[in-house]
Each structure stands twice: as structure tokens, then as C-alpha cells.
């Protein structure tokens, strides 16, 4: 599998990363090298092998739906880039 500039642009958009036009070729090259390494996996027949999602095959633990934490909005928003009236500010989304 070899990635083209357009593939990198597409993946970067999905990841919400900006890749400069002058870096597209080198990033495509790096990613292709990594994918070649990864494709060693294709040598193995994994038909019927159960995928392993958790090292100890544990199930998700559940807890009662009760409030367990205090409201710390002011503390958490004190490190935010921009807030107003307890809300996080971002550029205008709807004109």
C-alpha cells in the first residue's frame, strides 16, 4: 500500500490536522514506510481468530447511576483558552 498526496489530505482532514502542501510528499513517504512495516501482518492466516480487545478479557464494569463527583466547572474553566458565562467560546458556527 502506497499513499498519495490526496490520501494524506483526506486522512489529515479526518484527523482534523492541517498538513502544509510542501510537507505532503514527505508525510506520504513516512506513512507508506510505516504501512509497509504493518503489512507484515498479512503473512499470517487469522481466519477464525477472535480479536483481542482487552489483555485480560475483562468486561466493562458497571456502577449505579449516582452522582459521585462535585461540580468543578470554575476550576476546569480556569485553564480554558476562552470562556464566558460558564460556556466555552469558539468561533461563530452558525451565520
Amino acid at each position, binding site marked *: 500500500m502506497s*499513499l498519495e498526496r490526496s*490520501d*494524506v489530505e483526506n*486522512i*489529515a482532514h*479526518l*484527523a*482534523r*490536522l*492541517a*498538513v502544509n502542501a510542501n510537507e505532503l510528499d514527505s*508525510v506520504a513517504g*513516512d*506513512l507508506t*514506510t*510505516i*504501512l509497509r*512495516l*504493518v*503489512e*507484515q*501482518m*498479512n503473512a*499470517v492466516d*487469522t481466519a477464525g*481468530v*477472535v*480479536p*483481542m*480487545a*482487552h*489483555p*485480560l478479557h*475483562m468486561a*466493562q*464494569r458497571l*456502577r449505579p447511576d449516582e452522582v459521585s463527583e462535585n461540580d*468543578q466547572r470554575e*476550576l*476546569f474553566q*480556569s*485553564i*480554558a*483558552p*476562552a470562556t464566558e458565562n460558564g460556556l*466555552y467560546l*469558539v*468561533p*461563530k*458556527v452558525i451565520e
Partner: protein
Amino acid sequence: MHSKNITELGAGLRAGDFSSVELTRSFLDRIEQYDAELNCFITLAPEQALAKAAVADQLIRSGNAGPLAGIPIAHKDIFCTRGMKTSCGSKMLDNFIAPYDATLVKRLDEAGVVMLGKTNMDEFAMGSSNETSYYGAVRNPWDKNLVPGGSSGGSAASVAAGLCVVATGTDTGGSIRQPAALCGVTGLKPTYGRISRYGMIAFASSLDQAGPITRSAADAALVLQAVAGFDRHDSTSAEEPVPDYSEHLNDRLHGLKIGLPKEYFDEGLDGDVARSIDLAIDEYRRQGAEVMEISLPNSELSVATYYVVAPAECSSNLSRFDGVRFGYRCQEPRDLEDLYKRSRSEGFGAEVKRRILIGTYALSAGYYDAYYLKAQQIRHLISDDFKRAFEKVDVIMGPTSPTTAFALGEKADDPVTMYLSDIYTIAANLAGLPGISVPVKPANGKPVGLQIIGNYFQEAKLLNVAHRLQQESDWHLAAPAGY
């Protein structure tokens, strides 16, 4: 004082030979003297440390202190420390003041340790040389032209150089064991889930595990004792009971069955490293252990598998860094998409972006089965290899890293070559097994680590096996010249 272990320092503190304030001052002085050249620390907390040391001294005088009270420690800058910068080695979090303590930090604080500061690391723990840090590379105290390993490079180098007694680390693919090996110190990665991940900034959540980097296995046992155990704040925290990790340290190894995976001694292994590993294995034979060759046939696929699983999980975990709620935000964003894209592109370094892109690709529509599902299947095969091996042997041994520490810059521009330096450590993460790296005879003056892998929750056995080597040899006592 800087070369003593926790037990020795604890005895000195309790006997009143010196106070924790004096001990803390002496380590702060050493950091002042040496860290400009080593770059082990991102943030120092001298005032907080001296205040904590004074509290520890009172506790010690009252006779109610535990073994870690008053002991100077450093935390990898991946652990949240309340009211203090927690950068994860990234520009993205250069302005991040953690609003809470990680469970590991909290438990050690309650045990009375004195935190000196936060150690340097590869950005978001992605690297094997500590060169991807936004705060610059860490240098190896054994030779300042060499890397300390990574990603817990600052932690390993600071213990090796005697800038702290203990440092914490995290290990997703070898990030405790490999730098411990390259810096000549002891590094323990416990079983997945043994230590809470709460407040530990996530890289790959099904692989990440915290652990101590120390001067000895006995020290590692004391630190693990303080931090191991269930935490309701971590949904993958193990509910397994916590044994006494120091109780069996001295147990004799007669009849211990050691498996040497033939795949860990192949042509990729440096000859001098192999000779040092052989010497350590001989010492175990002398102590009555039974050594046999085993096979982990799928282990050669661990790097390939890891570079799907880890980037996939990282691409998901790191999506939280969006310039909205905390961390770096770009200047004058045009619109929301520009805010996301530029904040992330300017805030993350090259290796982190590379892994986010690989992970995003592996999880994208049409590629999921070929990459992520396939990797999870092979992960099962790798895990089954270990399961079969542990039916025959008690522990598995081999080199931690295929080479000794390499030169700064040597692999920095070649991601895949860098990835291969974790070839012997990654499989334990994929399987979730505990592993420890202990120093053996240096090769050409450079440290070499012996890796010991155990079965699930067999940390006490690993520490026992490592401790017995350290009782009968002095390799772990070697210190870099000039420190």
C-alpha cells in the same frame, strides 16, 4: 546520599542521621548542578518539596512513617499533578495546569514521598529516545552523546544520575523497560490494570501501564506496594488482591524454570548485549534455576501489530486536544474547523501527528478489517504464545533492547528503525503481561538490561527473581562516571 536505595535512606531518616529536608536539599542541589547538561526535568517544585519534606520529618519523628516517607521522587510529566504544569512533553499542554492528582501521584503523596518535580519524556510518550519532547532531548548520564531511551527518558536518566531516588514512568510498548535498560537502572512494568491509569494522560488505553524506575528490585517492590490496587476512577483497573511485594524477595530460586525465547536471541541482537545477557543467565543457573529454550512464534509480528493498535487508540485518545477546553489554541482562528486544525497542527510535534494519521487511516471506512481487526487477531495469537510458554516455565528472560544506547540523532529521522528498538518489549504490552528490566554487565561501558517477563499478576515473582540477581551481583550498583 544520592547513591543509596530507599531502605538505606529510610533507615537513616528513622535513625535521625539526616532529615528529609536535608535529603531533599541535597537532591535539589544535585539537580541544580547537573540538570542543565542532562535535561531530565521539565518542571521543578523546590518549595513544595521542602514543605513536604518538613511534614515527612514530623511524621518520621512521631514513629508512624511508612517506608517511603521523606523519600525524594520525580514523576514523569504524563501524570497529572494538581495545581502544577503537566505537559506530557508537548507544546499542546505547555500551559496546562492539572486540576487534579493522578491516583498514582495521590497514593505516593499519601505514602509520604517528596516530589521534586516532573521529568522529561517523549511527546505524549511516543518515542524510544526522548528526542520527540517539546522541551528538548534528555542526555544519557553514561555518555552525553547518547540517548537515554524513551519515552520515560527523563525518569530513567534522573535515577541513573542520582538526581532522585525513584522516578515514575509509563510503558505502552517498552517506555519504562527500554530507558531503564539504556540508563542502567531497574524498571518495572506491572500487569495491565495493576496500577490505576486515572490522571495518567492516555496514549493507547489497552496497553498503557504505569510503573517505577528505581535503583533496585527491592525499591521497586516498595513503590509498587504503595500504588498497586483497584481504583474506581479507572474503568480497567484490576480488582485482583495486592500481595506483599517485599515478602518473597529473598526466596531461593532453586528449581525456577526460565524460558529463553529463541526469537529474542536472533540475528537482530547485538553480540556484546547477548554476552552480557548470557552472563546473567549463568548466574541464575548457579542459583539452581533450570534454563530452557522456548518459542514465541508470533513475536516477530509484535512491532507490526503494535503500530496499528497503538496509533489507532492514540488517534482516538488525542482527539480531545481540540483547542476548546484546555491546552494550546492557535491565534485568530477563522472558523471552528480552522481552530481545530491549526491548534492541533501547531500544538503537536511530527511523531505525534504521524501516529494520529496512521491510526486515523487504520480506523477509516474500508480499512478497519485489514488493519485494526487483523492486528487485534494477531494480538490474540501473540498472547496465546505466552500462555503456552507459561505452561512450561515460570519466567521468560531475554534482552530488554537489541542494542545499547544509540547516539542522539542517529535514528531521529527514520521512524521505522526507531520503532524496532522496542522489538523485545512490545509483546508484553500486547499481551498485558508484567515485565522488568534489570541492569546486567555493561557492554563497552554502556548499560545493558535483562528483561524478565512473568505471568499475569506475578509481579512478586518478577521482583524476587530480579532481587536474587541483585543480591549475588553488583551490576545494578554501577553508576555513570561523574555523577
